[in-house]
């Protein structure tokens, strides 16, 4: 993947395919207090047993029925470790899965975060039935928005209406810029 926001989208899609009805994405960027970029995805999907978790970072593991090799997670783990970071995965059958990846923010080999707003928009566009919570922390500021609070605002207008999606993109971009406060992160 060219950017971390695409890896995040890929992991969010994994949660969807695990039957999650609630997904929480937390993105943390710290440059002032520490040198850290991390993200965590928590879902209430069907979860995995220990054997599946153990084999997850083996490139020859995939749940896909049409492919035999899955490379998403092992490659991302390798990238995180190369950047003085790491990853953690906890899962319980019937409860859900929590996966985190983190990097040294200023590491020269760290992939760019990329277009996180577009990744969030994808959740509203094609998974509007899922309660998706997005938390973005940048040093001392944070922004959080959930599907249920947006639905409360839009009432009978579907959240995946194209006009709504475009407006939400502007809304998310404005909030992101405010979080960064004119400084360059990404």
């Amino acid at each position: 993947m060219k950017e971390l926001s695409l890896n995040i989208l890929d992991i969010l899609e994994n949660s969807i395919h695990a039957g999650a009805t609630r997904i929480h994405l937390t993105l943390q960027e710290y440059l002032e207090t520490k040198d850290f970029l991390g993200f965590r995805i928590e879902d209430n999907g069907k979860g995995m047993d220990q054997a599946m978790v153990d084999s997850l970072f083996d490139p020859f593991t995939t749940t896909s029925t049409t492919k035999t090799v899955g490379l998403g997670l092992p490659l991302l783990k390798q990238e995180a470790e190369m950047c003085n970071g790491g990853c953690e995965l906890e899962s319980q059958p019937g409860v859900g899965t929590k996966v985190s990846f983190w990097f040294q923010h200023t590491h020269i080999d760290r992939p760019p975060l990329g277009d996180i707003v577009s990744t969030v928009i994808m959740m509203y566009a094609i998974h509007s039935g899922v309660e998706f919570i997005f938390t973005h922390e940048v040093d001392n500021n944070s922004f959080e928005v959930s599907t249920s609070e947006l639905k409360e605002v839009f009432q009978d207008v579907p959240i995946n209406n194209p006009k709504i999606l475009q407006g939400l993109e502007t809304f998310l971009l404005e909030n992101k810029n405010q979080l960064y406060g004119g400084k360059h992160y990404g």
Partner: protein
Amino acid sequence: MAKINSLDELRKLRDQAKESMTARSGEAKVRIRASMGTVGIAGGAREVLKAIIDELEKRNFHEVEIIEGGSMGLDKEEPVIVVERDGFQTTYGKVQPEMARQIVAQHVINGQIISEWVIARNKQ
């Protein structure tokens, strides 16, 4: 930690969207399936879907449902989108954002298939 989240501007957006929905009801219902598997994402599926949303909004066409198609086992052809219209499922392969805009304008809205990009076509 300072929290930022202003939903007020979104209320205005809701009223605008509501207005255009009422003005344009009764159009043909179209469904677009976008595949969002690992291969599709790596190949640009997110940007393709964003182009579709943007084009639908520009043309004020809202009688369409966008759903996830999962990985369709067509990795070589990703990004793949399927248009369901007039009783047919039409699959387009190796779709790029500019192609997606044309598919919306010609096929989704006006029902004209762009044959040179079609990789499969089935009756629903």
